[in-house]
């Protein structure tokens, strides 16, 4: 699909509009090619794990999807609206949890969430209600008036997830959200996001290099050196590669890809 593809063309390929559609996206830093003709879709209710080693192109891809970088080649559409046609308005159905903490440490949890709710245009009463709902779901409401600086890493991460859900996004994008967290907190967060996807019909794009965060029913995309080398359900990919775990298949795929390059 070309850079100037219309929204109608994108939508006509399927009855269900993908929460995100990435078509033929390439990106380079000077002479170094970071992404090479990347295409994939993520549908509502689907938990998609984007797996790749360091330097695979995950963060570049996320910067393009969040429009922090301009997309020079290819098309990215969120809920059927491409950046090329709709500009920043296409970001409306997107919720993001960045790898790095992006909360204001000197403000309280409530102040941080209120600020974000206003940026998303939520009226005050709705914002208050959503703040209570999303924090309660993550067992954080009792700490709503504490300063973020006084929270530990796991609690800060929960606040970020609550924040990303305030405006009820159709697509939730999480960039290695469990880095640096203990096993129990990781499990709580992974379970919560899987539940969000299945119960609330939210499309989730979760980047990671931790295999135990990926479940058998998940959709898996493996990125290596800027190229997608696997795209399908975990079960299908395991069967295709005759492997018993995602970890084995990841290692095998990367090795095969490196062999081909030699």
């Amino acid at each position, binding site marked *: 699909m070309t850079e100037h593809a219309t929204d109608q063309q994108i939508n006509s390929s399927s009855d269900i509009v993908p929460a995100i559609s990435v078509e033929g996206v390439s990106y380079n830093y000077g002479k170094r090619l970071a992404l090479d003709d990347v295409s994939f879709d993520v549908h509502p209710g689907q938990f998609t794990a984007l797996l790749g080693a360091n330097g695979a192109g995950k*963060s*570049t891809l996320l910067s393009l999807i*969040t429009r*922090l970088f301009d997309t020079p080649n290819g098309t990215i559409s969120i809920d059927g609206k491409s950046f090329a046609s709709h500009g920043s308005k296409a970001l*409306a159905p997107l919720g993001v949890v*960045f790898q790095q903490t*992006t909360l204001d440490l000197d403000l309280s949890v409530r102040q941080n969430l*209120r600020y974000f709710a206003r*940026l998303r*245009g939520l009226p005050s009463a709705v914002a208050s209600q959503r703040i209570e709902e999303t924090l309660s779901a993550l067992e954080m409401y009792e700490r709503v008036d504490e300063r973020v600086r006084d929270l530990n890493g796991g609690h800060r991460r929960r606040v970020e997830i609550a924040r990303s859900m305030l405006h009820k996004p159709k697509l939730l994008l999480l960039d290695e959200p469990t880095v640096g967290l203990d096993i129990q907190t990781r499990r709580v967060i992974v379970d919560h996001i899987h539940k969000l996807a299945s119960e609330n019909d939210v499309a989730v794009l979760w980047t990671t290099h931790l295999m135990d965060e990926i479940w058998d029913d998940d959709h898996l995309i493996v990125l290596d050196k800027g190229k997608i080398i696997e795209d399908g359900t975990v079960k299908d990919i395991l069967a295709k590669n005759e492997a018993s775990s995602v970890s084995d298949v990841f290692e095998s795929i990367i090795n095969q890809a490196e062999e081909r390059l030699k």
Partner: protein
Amino acid sequence: MMNGLMIRALYGILYREFLRFFQQRARFLSALVRPLIWLLVFSAGWRQTQGLAPYPPYETYIPYEVYMIPGLCAMIQLFNGMQSSLSMIYDREMGSMRVLLTTPLPRWFILVSRLFAGVAVSLLQVYAFLAIAFFCTYFEIIELDIPTLGYITVIPALLISGFMLGALGMALSATVKQLENFAGVMNFVIFPMFFISSALFPLWRIKDLSYTFYQMCIYNPFTYAVELIRFALHGQFYVEGALVVGATSLIALFLAIYAYDPSRGLKAKGKRG
């Protein structure tokens, strides 16, 4: 045309800026102490040696502190503008800027809103300073003669000059890659802008002293911000100053929007992976 989302977002950006400002009490105090030291110490010393002849907008001989007040108001705004740019760099390093840039708001609107919030904070600082100066006059510590109406007519001048200094700071913030480099901005931007201007000495006196220095002053947009505030405090409108300050604001804002464009400014700073 602003829609509901934009109005709420602008309110949100103002809300955060004021929350941060009131939590950083040291910032508020330093914003006041700096010009007050200049006013109470520097001007008191200089008033004995500086005879200031009537020169527009002044109609009579004036004490030196009267002359200094507009320059000190502009100084507050200059430091606040640079503080805002420091805050932009901090937000970029801490990732808060990413949260703003991934909202469905146009990038120009985000930057203008940040600017507007910074100007609102600078107005608060300037009025706090003017209030203290007023009380100092009441207790005859200094001799300050500003017409009552001047406290109102100065608002548009403060808005436009605050906007220019904020926009300059914002454009600068796009070029400074790390927080540590901000000390360079202090040395190479704030001090030359303040001292090479009409903030401390009248242009006619500078011209008598050194024609080269005078030329440098009249090419400094800060001079026009100071003069705009000076005339406005006395209920007069300085057209040339408004034009220069307005034009500089637009150029700086354009540069800032260009630098923060997703295809340009942040590209070089993006994390690769």
